[in-house]
Every structure is written in structure tokens, then in C-alpha cells.
């Protein structure tokens, strides 16, 4: 049953974006007539190759705008590479950011079903884990309240609870843990560690908190200005990361 093991392969992946500048018609028309490109190209990722195998927990670090989120988008399949090839084996559950996939007017419970459906689950599957999700979020007392009454921390709890309970083989966690309170953060990390010990999933972890990345991931990928600078054990990669940032100063 080789196919049951999740895996991610990036092969010489490059991603270019078009920066669409605000132009008035008067400015846009001449450049169009003269055959100038209508938008500037921006290279977000450049020749990135790596392979992540089943059971690995990988941190992705880099400065703002380095291309971390673009990598997550490519893994999630919402965008396609300009060059190169990506092979993702297994369902991907991104931890949905605050707001996305939730509806303010619907209750917490309704939002759990909505969010889990967006992550690709069917009703019967959700029914099986709904108690677990509510329990994990710690929001049992508010679950019938509309979401607009929730605080931003409660939002995150709900989103996190859904994402970890949907049982997708690939989990993408992007900087969201920072929002919950200390108790909930601990709970999440403990839960993720449990998932990690089972060695049957891939967890991709993007964070600016060196402590939590080091705590959690053995392997770290360092991205800088769209290029892969280093890929290896957390400690060595972070040394390089610090060196990179001190050079700049």
C-alpha cells in the first residue's frame, strides 16, 4: 500500500507572480500599444528542490517575503508552479487563517461543519469527530453562539481544532499558534507531538519563533529571497539563519 504514505516532492520549482500596478487608462493604453508588458514580473521562488517523506516534521524559516507562504500554497495545490514539478501524495489540511472559511453569522458548530467540508470531509466523517473537535477547542459553552461574538483567540482555537481532527495526512501550520493563549498553545503543541510520534503524517510548520521550531522539528528548510539556502538539522540551519541576518545589519 505504497500510496497510503504521504509525500511531497519539489523538483526545480520556480514561481513568478505578476505585479499588477494600478494604472489609469491613460497610462495603460500607450504601454499596451507599444507592446510593453502590462505587468511586472516578480520571482517569488527560484529553483527550489526538496523531498519530504512520511513521518517527517519540517520547519520552514526565512525572513518576511522570503517565499514561505508561497511554498505552502504550492503544497496545498491552490497555485501552480511557473517552472518545475511538484508531486504531493495525500490530502492536505491547511490550518485556515483567521476568517477564511468561517462565516460570522453562523454558529461555531455550523462553522465546524462548513470548515471541515472545505477541508474535504463528508458529513459522516465529521459526525464521528465532532465531539473531539468541540472538546479540543474548549468552546463547548459557546458552540451555538454566532462566530461574530467570538474573540480572535477563540477563532484560532476553532480553526486549529478542525484542522487537527480532520485526519488529513499532510498538515500545514502557518504562524497561527501565536494567537491562542499559553494554555492552548501548549495543548496544540502536545497534540502535534502526538501526531508526530505516530509517524504516519507530514507536518509542515512555518513560524518566526525559533524556540517552537527547534522544539518541534528536527529538519528545517531555510528560504531567503526565493532561494533555498539550507536544508538540514534545526540547529545548523538556524546558525546559518542568524549569520545571514547579522550580515545584513
Amino acid at each position: 500500500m505504497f500510496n497510503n504514505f504521504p509525500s511531497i516532492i519539489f523538483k526545480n520549482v520556480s514561481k513568478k507572480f505578476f505585479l499588477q500596478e494600478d494604472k489609469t487608462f491613460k497610462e495603460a493604453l500607450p504601454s499596451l500599444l507599444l507592446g510593453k508588458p502590462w505587468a511586472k514580473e516578480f520571482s517569488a521562488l527560484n529553483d527550489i528542490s526538496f523531498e519530504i517523506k512520511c513521518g517527517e516534521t519540517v520547519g520552514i524559516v526565512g525572513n518576511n517575503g522570503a517565499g514561505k507562504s508561497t511554498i505552502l500554497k504550492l503544497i496545498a495545490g491552490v497555485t501552480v508552479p511557473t517552472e518545475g514539478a511538484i508531486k504531493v501524495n495525500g490530502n492536505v489540511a491547511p490550518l485556515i487563517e483567521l476568517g477564511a472559511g468561517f462565516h460570522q453569522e453562523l454558529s461555531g458548530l455550523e462553522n465546524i461543519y462548513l470548515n471541515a467540508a472545505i477541508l474535504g470531509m463528508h458529513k459522516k466523517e465529521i459526525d464521528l469527530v465532532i465531539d473531539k473537535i468541540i472538546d479540543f477547542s474548549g468552546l463547548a459553552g459557546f458552540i451555538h453562539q454566532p462566530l461574530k461574538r467570538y474573540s480572535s483567540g477563540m477563532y484560532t482555537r476553532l480553526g486549529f481544532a478542525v484542522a487537527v481532527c480532520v485526519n488529513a495526512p499532510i498538515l500545514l501550520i502557518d504562524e497561527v499558534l501565536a494567537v491562542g493563549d499559553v494554555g492552548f498553545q501548549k495543548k496544540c503543541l502536545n497534540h502535534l507531538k502526538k501526531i508526530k510520534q505516530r509517524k504516519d503524517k507530514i507536518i509542515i510548520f512555518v513560524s518566526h519563533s525559533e524556540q517552537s521550531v527547534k522544539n518541534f522539528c528536527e529538519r528545517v528548510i531555510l528560504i531567503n529571497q526565493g532561494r533555498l539556502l539550507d536544508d538540514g538539522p534545526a540547529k545548523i540551519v538556524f546558525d546559518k539563519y542568524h549569520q545571514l541576518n547579522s550580515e545584513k545589519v
Partner: protein
Amino acid sequence: MFKQLIKPFVSYKYLLFQLTTREIKARYKQSIIGYAWIIFNPLLQLLVYSFVFSVIFRFPTGGIPYSIFLFVGLLPWIYLQTSLSSSALVLVDNSNLLKKVYFPREILPYSIILAKSIDLALSLLLLAGFMLFYRIPFHPAIIFTVPLLLLQIILMCGISLLLSSANLFYRDIQYVTTLMLLMWMYLTPIVYPLSLIPGNLVWLYKLNPMVGIIEGYRSSVFNYPFDLGTILWSIISSLTIFILGFWFFKKSEKVFADIA
């Protein structure tokens, strides 16, 4: 292509269901009369149009009470109008989602059309009530409204796919949509009968695919002979628009997350 076409209804049917209920539930939250708006809105429009076009203008409707004549055309039109104007915005409104999770994106406009179908079903009860009140008999031909409605839905899906994706590139589309719907309504025999169109222009007028569909509804409900040629044109043009819309949507889908 066929596999792609039915994917949202097979592998993603629960998501489609969830997005549709979200659309229905969320719409009338924090309003006093809530779902009653579904009935109230067409009823008010009916009153205004009836006053203007049966009291002031007095359109000839061949012995059928004007309000019934109007309702048979107006209800499917409201269905089209509300669906298209909402679905033009649906991808923009959900751009957060487009950037995060993969699912067949056409589910979003489809969910709008499904949600508005519930409105249509409820307002059809109102029409049935009116027909009973005016003692209009229910002919067996009324069954032909079903395939005509399906045809209208195919046309609406095609246009929604075009509008929603185009609006993601240029927001002008949502304003164009409002204008287009207004003009389109007056170029379709909804508030007036087709018989008022000058004979030498009828062929041009009938290029509008909604003409055959709306006239078809009237033929089925009032048991008139069907204008088969016009309906055939509606079938051909609606299918063409759907295929074009689907093709354009699937082509542009790859960059949705980059430009949203």
C-alpha cells in the same frame, strides 16, 4: 471533460451542500422578518409592475390577468437576476479561501445558484396561490416548465462561471453585471408580451436566449402552442454559453490564488 463537469456533484457534494446552506442561513440573519423577504420581495415587485403596466400602460395579455402573466415571467427572471448578481461577487468574497484550500472552484458559483433555487421554489408557491385565486386551470403542459427551468439553470451556470472569474481579474465586471441585467430584463418579454415587438425586428429580438425560455414558461402554464424554433435556439445558445463559461473558468482557475 465530462469527469470534470460532474466532479463537484460527486466527490464534493457535501461541500456544495454546506456552502449552499451557508448562503441561505447567513443571508437573513439579524433581520426582523427573515425568510419572509423571499416572498415579500417578488410580491412588492409584482405590485409595482402591475400598477405601472396594467393600470398606466395597459399591455394586452390575451385575456390572462396581468399579474399572472407577469408572475410567470418575473419569478424565473428574479431567479436569474439574483443568482447572477451574487455569483459575480462570489469568488472575490471568498478570496481568502481561494488562497488556502484546493477544491473545484466552480462549487462557489454553483452554491449561489442552488441557494437561489430555494427562493424560487418558495415564490412558486405564491404563483400557485395566485393561479388558484384567479381560477387559472393547471394544464398537463405545465410539466414542460421543468426542462425549461433546467435549460435556464444551464444558461445561468455558464454566465455565472464567466462573470465570477472575470470579476476576479477586473472588478468592473460587477458593475457591468448590474447594468447588463437591467438592460437584459427590458430586452426580454417579462413585463410586456412578445406580441408588442415589431415584426421586422422579432428575429433579432429572439437571439436573446431568455426569450425562448420565458415564452416557453408562458406556453406551458397557459397552454399556448410552443414556439419550437425559438426554444431550439435557446437550447443551442445556452449550451454554447455554458461550455464557453466552463472552459474559461477552468482555464483561468489556475491563477485565481495569485490574483485574488
